[in-house]
Each structure stands twice: as structure tokens, then as C-alpha cells.
């Protein structure tokens, strides 16, 4: 796949269709891959990579990149295309300035999952019949492939590219995923249990803003949390409940716009399952307003942006809140 992508990228650069390519750049090790913009065939040959670890969603970078001179080639995985579509809908990217090649999605691997098994000094990973053979400084280790995959891939919602100019590889389908299982589990908890679950998770937050900054739905020019006049701008908790508020407010702000790309949880240094907050909103929107997938198209009106006489009454909050 990587070779085909490199070949096509070089062709599109050579024939002038695009003047830049956004993709992923090799790191120091086999897994520490950085999103990068390539301008020449030489740069692509030297550093372009697409493999089990290229999980980063590059859609958000296109907010800036699509406003620059000339057209940029973007390789988007199925989940990334939802983010891109949503950005089109919100007029945050210039569609004409992006040439999209849809590429197959995951499952991608997460090095943290491997290391969480106590495997250290990792030098390389090979997938042999869904068993990972891991070369380490201390000898070879093995673990099941599926235990090392990215959280966001484990709950993959769709293998379908919702926007592209061309595809490399075959397009897939929207999946019948089990992504709401954990949300349901949380819903079935008592209020106290649920509160404790979130308190434990959110108390780990170090307020690094990685979740916000990586989020393709968080593209405000000036975030309310960075505005000293907002009264919520604190960089650290001024009381013990503040971290919860940060994440809850953020979840509200991306409600109906979050495509469930899973980047928030992927980048969280403290492994907080932030995507569950967003998924709760998605699940509720589906239940209250009918099935809706943000980013599936660029034209439909989002349920939370439309008023309909059939809409549920605000009292639904109270009704549903009763145990």
C-alpha cells in the first residue's frame, strides 16, 4: 500500500495536480510517526510512511493547509474522511484545494498497548497470523494482534470513505459496530457508580489540552478555555471538580459535530476514555432525533441545528435522568 501511495503522490506532484502532500513521516523508531507535509518526490522517498502505526488523523491540518497557495494531496483513511466532511460542512476547509485519496483504514496498532503489557525496549513488531512477534532488547515477546490495536480501531464504525477524489485499494462499508456497548454499560450503572467512574477517569487529567488540540471538531480561532475573560480559562484545577467541567463543556461543544474519530482518546497521555463522553451524545442524538452520523455528508442539517415540531421536549432530560 505504501508503495502505491508514494507512486501516486509523486505522479500528482509531477503533473502539477498538487504542490504538496500531507501524510505521515517516519520517526526515530518504527512506531513514532509524525504527520507531515511533503513538497518534493525526494522528501516522499526519504520519509513517507503508511503502515500499522500511521493512525493519526490529518484532516484537521487541512484547515490551515487548504488555505495556502495551490492544491494539497491528502491521504485519508475512512474515519478521517468523516472528519474532513464535517469540516467542509462547517466551512473550515477549502474543498477545492484538497485532492483526496482514500486509503484503507486500520486496524492500526498502538505502541502504548504493547508497552502496557510490560513489554519494554521494543525494537520492532511483526504481525504473523494475528500474533504480534515483538523484537525487544530483552528478546522476543508475543501478544495477540487484537490486544494491541488502537482503541479507535477496535470500535471502528465504518470502512467506507465518505469523500474522495480517488481511491487506492477498495472501499468498505459502514460497519455494524459495537461502539455503544461501553456507553450502555455506563448508562446501566447507578448515578453514583457512573459519577465515580468519571471522577476516577477525569481526575487523571493533567489539562494538557491534547484532546482539544487534536480534535478536528475543535477548530475555534479562540477557544473559550484560552480566553482570560471567560472565567474558565484556568490552566489547572482551581478546585477539585474543575477537570470534569473542562471535559464536559468540551463534549457539549462538539455534540452533533463529533464524528467519533477517536483521536481524543488516542492522544490522551493519561488514557482517559474521553470518546465515551462524545459517544454518549451520539447515542442520545440517535435515540432522540433519529440516526445521525456527523461527517457522513456535507449538506444535511445536524439535528441539534434544526428545529422540528417532532423534537423531544426539554423535559426529556429529567425523564431520562430518573433512575
Amino acid at each position, binding site marked *: 500500500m505504501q508503495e502505491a501511495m508514494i507512486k501516486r503522490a509523486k505522479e500528482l506532484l509531477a503533473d502539477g495536480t498538487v504542490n504538496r502532500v500531507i501524510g505521515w513521516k517516519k520517526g526515530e523508531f518504527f512506531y513514532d510517526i*509524525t504527520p507531515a507535509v511533503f513538497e518534493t518526490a525526494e522528501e516522499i522517498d526519504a520519509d513517507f510512511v503508511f503502515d500499522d502505526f500511521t493512525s493519526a488523523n490529518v484532516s484537521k491540518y487541512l484547515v490551515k493547509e487548504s488555505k495556502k497557495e495551490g492544491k494539497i494531496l491528502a491521504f485519508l483513511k475512512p474515519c478521517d474522511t468523516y472528519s474532513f466532511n464535517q469540516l467542509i460542512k462547517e466551512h473550515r476547509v477549502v474543498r477545492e484545494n484538497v485532492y483526496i485519496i482514500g486509503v484503507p483504514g486500520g486496524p492500526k496498532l498502538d505502541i502504548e498497548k504493547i508497552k*502496557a503489557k510490560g513489554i*519494554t525496549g521494543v*525494537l520492532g513488531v511483526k504481525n504473523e497470523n494475528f500474533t504480534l512477534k515483538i523484537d525487544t532488547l530483552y528478546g522476543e515477546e508475543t501478544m495477540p494482534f487484537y490486544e494491541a490495536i488502537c482503541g479507535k480501531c477496535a470500535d471502528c464504525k465504518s470502512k467506507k470513505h465518505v469523500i474522495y477524489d480517488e481511491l487506492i485499494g477498495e472501499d468498505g462499508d459502514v460497519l455494524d459496530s459495537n461502539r455503544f456497548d461501553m456507553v450502555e454499560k455506563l448508562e446501566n450503572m447507578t448515578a453514583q457508580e457512573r459519577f465515580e467512574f468519571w471522577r476516577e477517569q477525569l481526575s487523571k487529567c*493533567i*489539562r494538557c489540552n491534547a484532546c482539544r*488540540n487534536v480534535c478536528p471538531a475543535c477548530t475555534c480561532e479562540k477557544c473559550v478555555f484560552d480566553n482570560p475573560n471567560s472565567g474558565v480559562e484556568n490552566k*489547572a484545577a482551581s478546585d477539585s471538580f474543575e477537570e470534569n467541567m473542562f471535559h464536559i463543556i468540551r463534549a457539549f461543544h462538539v455534540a452533533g459535530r463529533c464524528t467519533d474519530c477517536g483521536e481524543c482518546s*488516542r492522544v490522551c497521555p493519561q488514557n482517559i476514555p474521553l470518546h465515551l463522553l462524545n459517544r454518549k451524545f451520539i447515542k442520545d442524538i440517535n435515540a432522540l432525533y433519529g440516526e445521525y452520523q456527523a461527517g457522513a455528508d456535507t449538506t444535511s442539517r445536524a439535528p441539534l441545528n434544526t428545529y422540528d415540531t417532532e423534537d423531544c421536549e426539554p423535559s426529556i432530560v429529567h425523564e431520562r435522568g430518573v433512575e
Partner: protein
Amino acid sequence: MLKIAKNRLNELFAAIAEKQTLYIPVDREDGAAEYRKWENGCEMSGALNTVRSAKDFFFPQTENLVDFKMEGKNIEVIDIRKESEDFVIFGVKACDARSFTILDKVFLVDPVDSYYKTRRDHGTVVTMACTRPSETCFCGVFGIDATAPEGDAACFSDGENIFFKANTEKGQAFIDSISSMLEEGDTAKLDEVQAKTKSILEKLPLANLSTDSFGGARLKEHFNSDKWGELSEACLGCGTCTFVCPTCQCYDIKDFNTGHGIKRFRCWDSCMYSDFTKMAHGNPRLTQLERFRQRFMHKLVYFPANNEGEFGCVGCGRCLSKCPISMNIVKVMKALEVK
């Protein structure tokens, strides 16, 4: 050398905790480790290191500095400082132990930061020599020996026993306080373990990373490098690297109105944040390039320029594993290396 059998660690912790608050790294359910107050049943983590560094003990993410009572036109300043209680941090790795010396060079130079100092005075750092360094480790590059950590007292494991060595008077006092539980032990096996670890340290992929290109003398050369644009291109401008870093010490001071008084608190800040240098009339670091450059210039050039060549990095590798876009000090050092 004095030792205790590994299976008696819990007893040892109980004995320490009887006299002082004890913190040890423990595993969380998500597989990551963090320091927690020891309570009966807490087991020491075998992980490479904690996600948050040990700097929290001396420089917490947020702390109250002073209170104010406002009445009409009058202000009452209330000094809320207290002497810290005595505490022990057990199981600190060599990299984090060195970070304290670096933080000392900021907080203990005139004017001394009394908030930091009282914790330093009352905290005993008991380190644990590494036996399983990771590919992200490069403490050796900064002259740190992972098998012989600093700290008040150092511990060494041969797999079955934990050996103790005092590095400071405070460390000796700590060992004396638990000496009734310790016994003289043979270090033959420990020597073997140490030799094995040393051979791994030499083989680490980053063992040969060079600091020769950095330091105060190259200030303008590195500042004006044309590499910063490419290096910072994908930076999200989040504070992950800063907050997991054991040596990052920039802070903000803010006021919080509780409704019945003002609390002035200090919290970690990040030079990666867009408002870090923002003033009412402008900002000298307008784009992420300048902010990104500041962080690495600080560690590799400015800090050594002001501190006899000591770098502001201990090679713990946290930024290598935690940066959302995998951009980190190693990549920066390699890109800026002067050949």
C-alpha cells in the same frame, strides 16, 4: 551491603509509612503507572516509569500561594504557608532523581522559592536503579547512570533482594530508621544484574545521541536555524510534553475568587501554549514555531548557558512516548546537530 528480601517490601513500606507519608509508583488499571500514597496492599509498579514525573512532589501542578481578604478599599494578605510534613518518595528512577537537581537550580537560587524548598527539605528521595531500560531511554547522554541513581538513598534489585546505599545524610538517616529490618547481603548476584543492565544501556538505540552541538555558545546559530519550521509543523500546541517532563518548570500565577476571598495559586504552564507570552499590547511568540523553538532552546541552549553547561533534559523518554504527534527532543537534537 544492607538488603531486604523483595517479598518483605510490603513490611518495609508499612514500617516507613508508620513514621512518614510514603509514596510509591503503582500500576493503574490502564497499565500506566503513577505515584500514590502507600496504603496497605499497594504494590510497587514494575513499569519503566510513571506517566507523570516525580516533580509533582516538590512542584505540584497547582498550589495555593497566598490568600487575600478584600474589604471595601482594604486588602488583607494572608500567608497560608505551612512547613511540609516529612515524606518519602520510594522508587524514583535515576532520570527523575536528576531532574530534582535541575529544578533546584531554578527554585533554590536567590530568591529561594519557599514553597518548593519546604518540600525539598522534608522529602526523602529513595531511588531505584533501573534493570530494564527502554528504547526511549537516553539518560546516559546527560551523564546519568541508570544503574547508580542519585537521590538521598539508592536501592538496587538483584531480582530477589533490594540493597540500600546512602547518598546523603538524609539518606543515611532513612536507612538507619529502617536498619532493624535490613541485613548484610552478598552482592555477587547484584553485580551480575548491574553488569547486564550496563550492557543493555550501551546498546540502547539512543545511547549515542550527542549533545556536542548544544549549549550556550550556539545560541544564535540554533535560534536562527531554518529547521524549526519543519520540526514544529505538526505540533498541536498542547502541553503534553511540558506536563510529563520532569524538568519543565514554567508556571503561571492566577487568582481564583472563591466568593469569600481570593486565592492566588500557581499552576504549571506551558511555553507551547499560545497565551504564554501574550500581553495586552502584543505577543513576541506569535506562531507555534516560536513557541516550539522556545521549549527546545530552553532545554538545549538557554539552560546550559545559565547553568554551567547542564542541560534541561534528563533523557527519561516521556515526551518520546507521550507526544500526540511523536515530535520530541531527540528528533530536534538530531535535526539540529552540527556535523
